[in-house]
């Protein structure tokens, strides 16, 4: 019973308007950030290397290579009201749940094979 009530509390802040993100996806995240007293939407594009947590705690970490080959990772709470929009640009063929190994790779070695929706079997 106690767990039901806990879920009920979370239910109010859950969002169902965003697409289901999978590890390996290339996504473009539109996140609202507050700059002083101004608010603007900042896009962030990269590879999802981690999806963790459940319920309202669910979050994803997006990795992208910024200028000069510097890797930048940002973690977004997936139910945050500050998430404006998530665009999934493509899926990738991945064989593990967390893609931390991409951190040690750069350039051609850091590529992921694209996965097409039609090929998706089981």
């Amino acid at each position, binding site marked *: 019973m*106690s*767990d039901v*009530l*806990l879920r*009920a*509390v*979370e239910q109010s*802040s859950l969002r169902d308007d965003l697409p289901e993100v999978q590890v390996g996806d290339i996504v473009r995240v539109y996140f*609202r950030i*507050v700059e002083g007293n101004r608010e603007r939407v900042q896009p962030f594009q990269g590879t999802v290397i981690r999806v963790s947590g459940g*319920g*309202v*705690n669910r979050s994803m970490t997006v990795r992208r290579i910024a200028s000069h080959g510097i890797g930048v990772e940002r973690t977004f*709470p997936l*139910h*945050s*009201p*500050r998430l404006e929009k998530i665009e999934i640009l493509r899926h990738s063929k991945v064989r593990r749940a967390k893609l931390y190994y991409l951190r040690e790779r750069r350039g051609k070695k850091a590529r992921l094979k694209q996965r097409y929706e039609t090929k998706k079997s089981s």
Partner: protein
Amino acid sequence: MKGILGRKLGMTRVFDESGVVIPVTVIQAGPCYVTQVKRTETDGYEAIQIGFEVTKPNKLNKPLLGHLKKHDLPPLRVLREIRVEDASEYEVGQLLTVEMFKPGDLVDVTGTSKGRGFQGGVKRYGFGGGPRTHGQSDRLRAPGSIGAGTFPGRVLPGTRMAGRMGNKRVTVQNLEVVRVDPENNLILVKGAVPGHKKGLVLIRQAVRPKKRG
């Protein structure tokens, strides 16, 4: 001073209007009955006794049942006393609900901390332990010196050493009430609260509210 008894349900997080994540503990509190009012004239001090969780009559002994039956109260599992400034505001049989608190209030939450069993000084008191290298053996989690030499020739009472940790009454002060849900008797406070899930907690109005910056 107002207070209510509840059970800790667990932690989660909520977002405020601007989207900032607030870690919260969900507590199912009340409804509590006022079971006895203690006045200075009769008892020497001002307090109320509140009861929580209706249970089966066979779970209580006869003196307790009689105490509750005197005022036509249901059998209650938990009875606790709360000091109040003026107990005349309360009367026996009155129902206390979470609605006594509103978002933004500061509360103190009292509970029994999780029992950790017999623990060493490193975990229990945050001792640093000994060096790991430079030829050390058996010193990694040692407590170090526990006192001087021939004088005083004994270990002073109260010296922090290994022993039973946790399972003690702990109060966390000045937690902010984030949300109150009278429908489900829920109250959400910001931050952690002592004890395990389903543990009994006492929520009271903060005795020493910190100044808001």
